[in-house]
């Protein structure tokens, strides 16, 4: 699976975004993290294979998330569904 890493000054937490390449909310989420200089990785789920879809589904559901995008996973523990700025800020301590 292709993870794209975006470098940022703040790498205190491990941040992963599952996104859809055409999704405006996902784009806003990435922009927010870019503007906040957060380091993160993302996967555009619609650009991955069927096999990867299954892995992504399991990853999200196993951590109590929903199959909605963007899904932001912080430190492989905290799952945030949707571009919820307050929750993202809280999880990233910014």
């Amino acid at each position, binding site marked *: 699976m292709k993870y794209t890493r975006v470098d940022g000054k703040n790498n205190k937490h491990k941040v992963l975004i599952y996104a*859809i*390449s*055409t*999704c*405006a*909310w*996902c*784009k*806003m989420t990435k922009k927010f993290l870019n503007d906040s200089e957060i380091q993160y990785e993302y996967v555009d*789920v*619609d650009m991955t294979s*069927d*096999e990867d*879809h*299954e892995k*992504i*589904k399991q990853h999200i559901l196993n951590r109590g998330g*929903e*199959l*909605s*995008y963007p899904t932001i996973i912080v430190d492989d523990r905290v799952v945030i*569904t*949707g*571009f*919820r700025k307050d929750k993202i800020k809280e999880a990233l301590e910014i």
Partner: protein
Amino acid sequence: MTQSVIARQRAESDARTNGCYLNPDKDFLDDLFQGIVKNEERYGYPLCPCRLATGKLDFDADVICPCIYRDIDVLEYGCCYCALYVRKDVYEGKTTIGPISERRPKELQIRAYGTAGQTAKPSPVSIGTLSEKPKEMASENLAQPTEVNRKAWYCRQCGYVSYREIPPYICPICKAKQEMFARLEIGADFRG
């Protein structure tokens, strides 16, 4: 005329017909239309830009923009799932919106994950997990995907006509409930 302009005109026309508005945030709207056009190129139909597709029309029919969940989402939350369509007070800047919960039943969402071995003919799916009460009429109609877009429903209260597989959950014009919709029989008589 670019595909994005065509998609916008189509959405504007649909919003006018259905008593809702397009998102007033121009940049956000541009992103959405770009996504819809990209999906139309990829799949052959304007799939919701914020949802994962199977690429199989029968599986994706309910989330082709405008999705069948739009009217009730706009009414309840002020915007549809991707926020392309909004309610009047949101359009006028009186209410702000954020991401909303996915109303699409999980059994429909899950089809986009590993459908390679599945046939393109979906089994009938009940929409009983919607927050609205399940409608026998609706699940009966979902069982016949080949008749998508050939059905018409009219609101017995205001006369609004909806060309959809199932009637709207709520009338976008007079807010009557789904029960107020009746099937509109369309026929042609070619006798002289």
